[in-house]
């Protein structure tokens, strides 16, 4: 979609203030941009580059390193169905076929209404609970085709919006760091004292 909204710009500035070097804030800012639109648009990357003082090419280089940042519009719910060994043995392929039929899209596609993106996933480390899937990285375990239908019904009806926020939202509670606990814009080489809030104790 576009650049950061005014509301998110305030949050972005707070995030930037936590780091001694502005560009260190890039990953949390990319998350913020993804939260805003569900994916990271080009305009957002240009904006982030301006905010932290790097070129958009550098933002792009950093962002594309990470698989969970998306650069194309994506459904509100990203359904990742595991297809690796254990899940495959326990019926993941049938589950995928069922999901494809139910949602009317092939794996990798997004439904017309923009609600669901269906995707193959490699092992999600829940082999004992196969077959498993994730909706916006929230697990659903030992999923049967009926479970999947129910899940989609519930998501469509908005019954799970508390538990599963839209794609891009990391957590319902946003981390806040009081300004006096931030490192501030001081170069690490110039810091010769521990932060005041440690009260003279060792950092770890």
């Amino acid at each position, binding site marked *: 979609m576009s650049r950061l909204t005014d509301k998110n710009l305030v949050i972005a500035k707070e995030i930037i203030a936590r780091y001694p070097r502005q560009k260190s804030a890039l990953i949390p800012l990319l998350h913020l941009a993804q939260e805003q639109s569900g994916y990271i648009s080009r305009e957002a*990357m240009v904006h982030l580059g301006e905010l932290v003082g*790097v*070129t958009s*090419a*550098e933002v*792009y280089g*950093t962002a*594309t390193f*990470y698989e969970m940042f998306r650069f194309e519009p994506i459904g509100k719910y990203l359904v990742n169905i595991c297809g690796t060994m254990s899940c495959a043995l326990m019926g993941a392929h049938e589950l995928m076929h069922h999901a494809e039929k139910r949602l009317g899209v092939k794996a990798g596609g997004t439904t017309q209404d923009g609600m669901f993106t269906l995707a193959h996933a490699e092992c999600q480390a829940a082999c004992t609970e196969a077959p498993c899937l994730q909706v916006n990285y929230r697990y659903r375990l030992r999923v049967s085709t009926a479970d999947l239908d129910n899940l989609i019904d519930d998501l469509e009806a908005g019954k799970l919006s508390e538990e599963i926020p839209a794609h891009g939202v990391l957590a319902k509670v946003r981390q806040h760091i009081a300004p006096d606990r931030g490192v501030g814009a001081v170069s690490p080489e110039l810091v010769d004292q521990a932060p005041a809030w440690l009260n003279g104790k060792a950092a770890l």
Partner: protein
Amino acid sequence: MTIVDPTAENIVVDPNVVNITINDKPVLARKGELIIAAADRTDDFIPRFCYHPRMSSVGMCRQCLVEVETPRGPMMVVSCMTPVAEGQIVRTATDTVKKAQEGVLELLLANHPLDCPVCDKGGECPLQDQAFSHGPGESRFVEEKRHYEKPIAISEIVYLDRERCILCDRCTRFADEVAGDPLISFTSRGNDTQVLTFPDEPFSSYFSGNTVQICPVGALTAKPYRFKARPWDIEQTESTCTSCSVGCRIVVQSSRDELVRFQGVDIDPVNWGWLCDRGRYNFESVNSTERLIAPLIKSDSGLATTSWSIALESAARIIRTALASGADSVAILGGARGTNEDAFAWASLADQLGITQRDSQLGDGLTPEIFNLEQATIDQTCAASTIILLSPDLKEELPVLYLRVRDAAQKRKSRILEFTPRDSGLTPYAWRSVSFEPGRQAQVVRETLETQEIQEQIRRGEVVVVLGRANLAENESFTLHALGEIFHAIPNAKVLPVLRRGNVRGAVAVGLTPQKNSGDAIDILTKAAAGKIECLILLGSDPLADVADSDLVARAFNRTRSVISIDTFINSSNRNADVVLPAAAFAEKTGTTTNLEGRISNVTQQITPRGTCRPDWMIATELGLSLGIDLGVSSLDELHQKMTSNIPEFSSCANNPIINSDGVLMVSEASATISRASVVLVDRNSYSYRLIVSRTMYDNAQSTTTSPSLVGIITKSAIYVNPLDLARIGVVDGTNIRVGIADKSIVLPVNAHSGVYRGTAWLPYNHTTVDVRPLLDITSDVVDVRIEQLH
């Protein structure tokens, strides 16, 4: 550093020297030096792709593995990441090392398309060469190779073939570390890693051509050279670039008597191997079909081709007629384009004819007096603790000097104190950047130098002032007054004069500069406009297009009876000339050139001059003969000898072979000082904007407009103001507005630019579409314009 042979008697132990052994031979290394750098001084070659001596090591390619003895036996290390240590034993060619190097090469080639027969790099490719010398010979990979769209244009000039790329990080590192334009970056991860720009944002760096030169494979290729030649049918010679006055060393390469490529040569005192794109690619103009190839003479139907003898005779007749009414009725403009020898021959001819009115600058530089101040070299500038910039934007006008100064500020702890009318390319790297409104620089400099913080910095060590003309829309005296303030505060400051024209320093040294108190180019044009000049000799100059005051120069040309032009192209000034003599271009003639720091180095002929073109010096001697004057030289060697013995500044380069490599500094003695003077401040009406007019890298210079690869990137004219001022004018970015002064005005787009300060407006000079010169009046101190909406 002094390297001491430890086996000699009277051993002096230098703490910076480390003794190591490479392949059983003792090697002296510098403390902190990398093994690969130490090995480069021996005969043992360590293969490498990512290591580049002018950039930081990253250890990306793993090709430079060597064995180092440790207490637990030999260990494999990456020689570009491992510093030397006392007593270190290095082996570069054991069976283990060979096996490792072969293994790495096999992996690097796993996805490489091996399309060498159709690759520009084939024949001079480090990957190809080292696959032969250090590779396994065959691959065990049978899998399908990675495929990408073949080549994609990442800028107007550079093409990227990602299939060939081995991800060595040289281009991306160069763009970030050296050029400061990180517009290309590694994207994605693992097997998908590739170098890319931001989508639809080109790699529009002024230095992009260097990435092509340092690419160790054929991944980056340049449009002007693509499929033009193969390395084995290239002939080459070392020379010095004269596109600007930095004087970068280059290799001029030709194939079938046509220039095909320039490559940078790494010399310590100047360019470190780097070139700017304009210098690298404007050789295309030498090959241009628009070049003048025969003498032209005025006829009823315009300029007509003629023979050299007729052209020289009529030129001589014109000069003789003009001289009959006094030596003051002839003037020479230009001469900074050619070699020292060219300029010397013309200055000698002028001397013999008694012509004192000559100027190799066109009112856009500074008085040649600045060459008589205490001088600094580029190296001294970059080693100074404080570099004061009182100069044009080096990135735009002297790009490789920008790289050197940027490097000094980034890596060598020099601090830049910048005085500038608008943000320059070096502003982000400046320790302090102080802005001034044109006309007020002396006052701003005085006040700044009085602050305690600045005084402390100045006391830390050497101070060098990089001095040049930042603004064509102000009187040059403002810059000199500001310099006077600097000398008042820092009497021992040295000066690096940065006048931009290729060989302006050499031309001034040999005498193509106002003689015996006669006026400079502007005075000459003013006299011409008053009808007092009968004959103008244009020595590779185009005043009608180049002098900042179009009104003055048009009047001057209207009143001048005859014009003789020595040039490589037809331009606006010689279109109606009486005689046009075709000159040999760069790479078509041999000689020497002088860079901005006074470094004399050779330029070499590589191709046959087009048509019947002759070098300027030859034209001067021939014209002399037609005028009954014998300059006493019949060859370039004789001319060079005569120049080095007649011109004291050039005595250092007599019979000195170093002019063929690093160059020799001219002899200069500080004889001038510039002292503080009181300046009358010119107030600005708060409704108007004070103009800053300066050049950018790609403008309508003849060598750029006649280079097909560069002509597309010349910027269109626009005026730039501060975003807040844009709001005050009441228009949005890109709207056409009227810029006016007195009864003259031009219409062009206005753009917001946060690097332009409030109350000023930046107008880049000599761009396409709109001529901005009607606004400029060279006699006024500063130029204040009105900016209004169109109605």
